[in-house]
């Protein structure tokens, strides 16, 4: 039920993000969702893509520091308050979130990409509470 996230280290320099995206485009890697967080010196670009292994390989060839990280892509209802309810559940179970970003698709459902320190425990909580997650295969299905 874990999904692979592609993370890329980028310096805060004009054109760096563009370079990453060019590599992905050239190699036909499609982006489903992204989050870009930065400090004054550098940023981390986190991506959900249709082919993370290929993305990693091609970016590394171009000299980027990149890695694959396990994350959970959690399905929540596309309506007011559903994210709050979900976070409530995590909070009750003393889970600290490292980062989270949205992945919207058409229809009634929305997804959030979630990374926490104890991801296996989160996964179990989700199963126990009947909350769906998207596996890699399902993700690739979304973006064909």
């Amino acid at each position, binding site marked *: 039920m874990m999904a692979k*996230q592609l*993370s890329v*280290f*980028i*310096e805060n320099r004009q054109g760096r993000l563009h370079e990453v995206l060019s590599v992905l485009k050239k190699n036909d890697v499609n982006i489903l969702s992204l989050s870009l*967080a930065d*400090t004054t*010196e*550098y940023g*981390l670009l*986190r991506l959900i893509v249709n082919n993370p292994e290929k993305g990693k390989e091609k970016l590394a060839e171009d*000299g*980027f*520091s*990149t*890695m694959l*990280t396990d994350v959970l892509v959690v399905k929540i209802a596309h309506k007011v308050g559903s994210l709050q309810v979900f976070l409530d559940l995590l909070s009750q179970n003393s889970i600290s979130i*490292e980062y989270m970003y949205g992945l919207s698709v058409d229809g009634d459902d929305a997804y959030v990409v979630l*990374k926490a320190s104890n991801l296996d425990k989160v996964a179990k909580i989700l199963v126990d509470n009947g909350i769906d997650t998207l596996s890699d295969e399902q993700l690739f299905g979304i973006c064909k």
Partner: protein
Amino acid sequence: MIWSKEETLSRKEIEEIQLSRLIETVNRVYEKVKPYREKMDAAGIKPDDIKSLSDLSKLPFVTKQDLRDNYPFGLFAVPKDDLVRIHASSGTTGKPTVVGYTQKDLEVWTECVSRIACMGGAQKDDIAQICFGYGMFTGALGLHYGLENIGATIVPSSTGNSEKQIMFMKDFGTTLLVATPSYALRLAEVAREMGYDPIKDLKVKIALVGSEMLTDAMREEMYKYWGNDLKVTSNYGMSELMGPGVSGECLYMDGLHINEDYFIPEIINPETGEVLPEGEKGELVVTCIKKDALPLIRYRTKDITRLNYQPCKCGRTFCRMENLSGRSDDMLKIRGVNVFPSQIEEVVLSFNELGPHYEIIVEREGYSDLLTIRVELAKSTDSFGELEQLSKNIRAKIRTVLGLDAKIKLESPNTLQRFEGKAKRIKDLRSSK
């Protein structure tokens, strides 16, 4: 094997030889070399003022600039007729520095290199391939005569045509290699490309490396390519002083023995010129005390090292200089603190999260200097926490080593410029403002 009995003299005996030779040299240059006379007169020193070895520090320094100003033969202490050889340094800027030798000088040179070759394990039955460029450069001919003198078989293959070098090694059974550390590694690479395993298919057991700093990391690489039982020792010298043969490592590899009966070493503070006590790190200054043609006095080598006067386990008593840790030309003064790039390199290399490349940037911010160190990430991470911790750890280590606060800039792999020759890792932007 110890080549000469001089190498094991007592400190007292060494100092007696040094003093008598120093006095003779100072008197001779004062009489015969006008620029020396002028320098000494300007400093208010007469040859008679030199009564003990500690009086050496009263004499003015000689620099590379003095050699340039007196190009080509102005500092020579013998008539041109007496010269039997001329060499010159590469001289990357302007005129090269020219050095000359009398027949006697060549004999001393050969003696010095013979000692160093023996220290590195060379013997009569060695087949010595000299992969230094023959020509105006002193490296090749210096090692050539020294090794020939101890009875080794010389293969004067010079530099270049690496495939042919390997062919000679294979066909002649070369046992001893003379090269720069980087060329020795390159040759091993070429051997591998040609389908040979340098460890099994070649017989090289000794490497006498010089004319480049031999760092511990480089020595490890040498073992990796040429085998763990390779005897790799570094030797030191420069054309101004003679060429190779000023000092060399013995097989204990705990410093380079200086041929003290021919050279007097001093360590100075490169800023003030003040002589530093034994064991302190600073710029090496060398006085030639047994040279006819070009006896340089208190020559500033710009090389940074320290001296150790304890007798060595090998039995030699000559003082030892540590493997070079940089050049005083590279020294930066940041917020009043002397910083050598090699200190920063040491910190960078100690983190396995980082690649070996780095760049040092010094800027002026208001009235203060700002030190920035750019480094490359070798290990990937998805966590800001880890990146911040890494920056913090590097900063802390820099602060411990230099006593300075630095800004650490983490960069992607392959961002920093790569260098084929001498690396330029420092950007001092203060002077341009």
